[in-house]
């Protein structure tokens, strides 16, 4: 049971990292990033492949963050001059491109067969509860650092500019500041967080295939921040926790209500999440933790 709870904790915190990146990008800056999973995938594959070459895991994780951020840079250059909705389409295209490249470049990624045997973190401790708790503790520290960094950014002159960009980009230009530069930086920081999340994911699951990096990952992250309260760090945490607990918890519905086949159960879970999301945006659009702009 403890091992199961630790596992849930790990999954939640990995997704919190993703949500924190999107909190900065969308919540604070207004960037509609529908391609978050692309950065997650780059981080996961980069770290896994490097680790299998015997590179120390710390360096693998740093590489995951750096590569994910670098991959976001050209997206920013190409598309940040586009209108919001076109930007959203381009980012979705980015993440799908990443997934298709991973699927087809078999020499590097082993295609749809995926990469088995990705080294675990703290392998020396073994695979039991102690190792899991060590991973969990590491994630807690990393999430706290990420949250502190985002908090620092949000409360700074930089944070003020990105909020101004979200409210009115043209006015920012008229006042002598180039929004594109700020948006590219935000995109890269958010991507770096997603990259680190991807690395944790790869080394925790130990077996990665392209199918794990579909758009649904991006949209779960969106749901999490909408449920929690867009733009709030606490919202990213609470929203992710609730969403993940529900996704996990609904596995047990079949014990309570017997007679539903596993495949239909998956659809029911998605349906329930959809309904919950509709109810949320209808009755509590500011999210559980409230609208952060009301200070």
């Amino acid at each position, binding site marked *: 049971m403890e091992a199961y709870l630790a596992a849930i904790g790990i999954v939640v915190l990995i997704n919190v990292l993703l949500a924190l990146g999107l909190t900065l990008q969308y919540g604070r800056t207004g960037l509609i990033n529908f391609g978050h999973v692309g950065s997650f995938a780059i981080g996961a594959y980069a770290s896994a492949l490097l680790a299998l070459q015997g590179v120390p895991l710390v360096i693998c994780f740093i590489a995951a963050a750096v590569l994910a951020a670098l991959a976001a840079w050209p997206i920013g250059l190409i598309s940040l001059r586009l209108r919001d909705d076109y930007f959203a389409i381009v980012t979705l295209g980015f993440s799908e491109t990443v997934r298709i490249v991973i699927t087809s470049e078999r020499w590097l990624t082993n295609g749809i067969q995926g990469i088995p045997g990705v080294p675990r973190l703290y392998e020396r401790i073994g695979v039991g509860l102690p190792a899991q708790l060590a991973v969990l503790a590491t994630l807690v520290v990393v999430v706290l650092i990420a949250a502190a960094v985002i908090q620092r950014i949000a409360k700074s002159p*930089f944070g*003020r*500019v990105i*909020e101004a960009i979200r409210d009115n980009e*043209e006015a920012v*230009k*008229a*006042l002598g500041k180039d929004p594109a530069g700020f948006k590219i930086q935000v995109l890269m920081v958010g991507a770096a967080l997603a990259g680190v999340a991807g690395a944790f994911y790869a080394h925790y699951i130990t077996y990665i295939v392209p199918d794990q990096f579909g758009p649904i990952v991006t949209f779960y992250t969106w749901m999490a921040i909408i449920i929690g309260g867009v733009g709030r760090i606490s919202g990213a945490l609470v929203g992710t926790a609730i969403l993940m607990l529900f996704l996990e918890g609904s596995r047990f519905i079949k014990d309570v209500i017997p007679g539903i086949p596993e495949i239909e159960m998956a659809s029911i879970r998605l349906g329930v999440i959809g309904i919950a999301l509709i109810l949320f945006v209808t009755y509590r659009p500011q999210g559980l933790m409230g609208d952060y*702009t009301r200070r």
Partner: protein
Amino acid sequence: MSLAVRHVSKAFGGFRALDDVSLELEAGALFGVIGPNGAGKSTLFAVMSGFLPADSGEILLDGKDIAGLAPYSRAHSGMVRTFQVPREFRHLTVRENLMVSAPGQTGENLINLFTRPGQIRRDEDRIAGEVRSILEFLRLTDVADLPSGSLSGGQKKLLELGRALMVSPKLVLLDEPFAGVNPVLIAALTERIRELNTRGIGFLIIEHDLSALTKLVPQLAVMDRGRIIARGAPGKVLEDPVVREAYLGGAS
């Protein structure tokens, strides 16, 4: 800062929004542009501030062609515009709207956030001081900590002017500063503009509404259908039969 607009044209499809427009403004001028709706005034502003490219002609700031400069570079070089419909950063407070407008802040660099906190704090203190004096100057101190989205239309126009002032402009382009503003605030705004002008800041003001503008500016130009049809002192220009025909139309 002197401004020269020379033979600027801009068409949208077949519609000539600007048709060979020329204007000369000396440094520190106080100049108005009037004209009926659709005369091309706002297009002229958009072209001057770099939000729209001109089809032909040139725009010179202090004698230098600025055709290739992005809007933010033009603002940087001292020519700052406001918008007809106020574009306040509505989730930010009035004070934050002004703080964010200060140029060249150390804390706008992500690396600096983690390496130079002391310098950022000093910057913030200095900017906060500037903001306080602008808030007082514009009589916005009482609403300083309200979200700017909750201001009245007139207060938003004052805020737009305040944000422009934060950039230390040499020339301010005001797009219909009096539209939708109550008479008391119009008087205040007029007085502020005049005072700033005596400090050497140039103003180019577009207005649809004549009465406030003609009292403020010593010189103006009249636009109609993309062309400048008259220019000179307000009293003289408004007597011009061509202007009366175009601007006042059927009313006279």
